[in-house]
């Protein structure tokens, strides 16, 4: 039998128009579910991005509170001789305060009352390769500098992970729940619209329509609704991402959030594909189940 795409599309659009309220419900449901999924994707991408950029950090910092000038010079020389180390910079107490002031330039109340000496002097050890940070940290510990006085990426990553892992798990759980809810809601919406048209379907079957012929317009309907809901949600997610990145640049200057952490194109594709799959799958299954009953 010929597959008459034009006929099926026309039927689908006509059904959407005639059952407008039901279609709006289905589109809105898809929109909300895909939006939640998209926000989940955004958050996890940004966390990944932050972790990635911290990992790229090629420096280890040794804080040296209360250590004398000589000790600093000795360590500077020793560390400079290790092959993993590219360079060593000494940061004095005054320099540390200046850099702190620089970072929080817009929040003067943070540093107004700080004197030189509050922030310890330190050595900034630049590495040849970020992967070597752990081994250098180990050597420094062997030199008698404990964990608290060291700052190297692994620490930050561990701290980040301990905070964000709960958040990410929560988001995943929420996303899964929302996806299940959306599949149920959408298939329910479709079942309702099929139920409203059960007489029509019975008539179609009586005049000799095959199951496929009856089903195809419904599947196209699900496709169009899924595409619309997911498309709108995906665009909203992209827009939210721009807002967030913009906001973080102004308000979270010390957090390395980067717009590039989110691959806009792949987020779009993933969200739209999931939305369309829900629409198409939902209508296919509901119609098939209904057809089996008559």
């Amino acid at each position: 039998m010929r597959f008459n795409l034009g006929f099926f599309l026309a039927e689908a659009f006509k059904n959407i128009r005639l059952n407008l309220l039901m279609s709006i419900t289905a589109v809105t449901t898809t929109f909300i579910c895909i939006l939640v999924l998209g926000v989940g994707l955004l958050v996890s991408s940004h966390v990944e991005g932050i972790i990635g950029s911290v990992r790229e950090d090629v420096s280890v910092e040794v804080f040296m509170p209360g250590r004398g000038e000589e000790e600093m010079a000795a360590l500077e020389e020793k560390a400079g001789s290790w092959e993993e180390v590219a360079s060593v910079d000494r940061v004095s107490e005054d320099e540390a305060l200046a850099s702190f002031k620089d970072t929080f330039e817009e929040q003067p109340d943070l540093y107004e009352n700080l004197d030189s000496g509050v922030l310890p002097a330190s050595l900034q050890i630049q590495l040849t390769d970020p992967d070597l940070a752990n081994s250098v940290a180990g050597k420094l510990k062997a030199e008698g500098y404990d964990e608290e006085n060291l700052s190297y990426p692994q620490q930050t990553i561990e701290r980040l992970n301990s905070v964000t892992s709960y958040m990410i798990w929560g988001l995943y759980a929420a996303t899964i729940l929302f996806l299940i809810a959306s599949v149920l809601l959408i298939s329910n919406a479709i079942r309702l619209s099929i139920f409203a048209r059960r007489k029509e379907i019975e008539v179609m079957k009586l005049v000799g329509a095959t199951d496929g012929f009856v089903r195809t317009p419904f599947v196209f309907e699900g496709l169009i609704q899924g595409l619309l809901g997911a498309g709108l949600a995906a665009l909203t997610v992209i827009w939210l991402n721009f807002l967030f990145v913009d906001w973080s640049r102004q308000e979270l200057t010390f957090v390395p959030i980067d717009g590039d952490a989110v691959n806009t194109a792949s987020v779009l594709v993933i969200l739209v594909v999931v939305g369309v799959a829900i629409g198409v799958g939902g209508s296919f299954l509901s119609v098939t189940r209904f057809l089996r009953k008559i």
Partner: protein
Amino acid sequence: MIRFSNVTKAYSKDTVALERLNLEIDQGEFVFLVGASGSGKSTMVRLILKEMEPSAGAIFVNGTKLSSVPRRRIPQLRRGIGCVFQDFKLLPNKTAAENVAYAMEVTGQRRRVIKTKVPQIMDLVGLSSKMDKFPEMLSGGEQQRVSIARAFVSQPPILVADEPTGNLDPNTSVGIMQLLHRINRTGTTVVVATHDREMVDVMRKRVVALDEGRIVRDKVKGAYADEV
């Protein structure tokens, strides 16, 4: 053309719609199935369309044993049987012409063929001026004409009608019966289940009378009731 062989249909242990019924309808015949409500007329129509299966016995349509037709071949079977119902069963969202065209679209007919065929058949049923009207804008008689046009547009070898005049006044009914008669004259086998006494008496066709699931009378050129 249509053969019921020892067919029994029981809906439950106590409700037996047809009991060991034997009937043979030849090609080109015009047959009335008559009887009171619950005598089994509609059950016979639904069995012919394979809307349900008999409890026992076999039904043959066009030489095919219906019980051997798999579910997925039912559409093909139904395309060979035009059907008309008391409640018209038109698609409410389609115009008269679209309703007729739908029966051709399901068979994958080309648009060009549909475009020439639909006006012809609408003309035949006398509705060429109401092609673009939706069912709710048509009278009962007109809706039934549309449904007959839909049943006949693919020129199936068999046309079955279940109480086609059940919702219509006597004058309109005459028109519907004449239409069925004309279709029968093109060689189509027509089976009409009805309790419209007047119509049966006027038409003088074969009458098969049912009572509680059994054939109590089968008469060529018969009347609704036994003639004195």
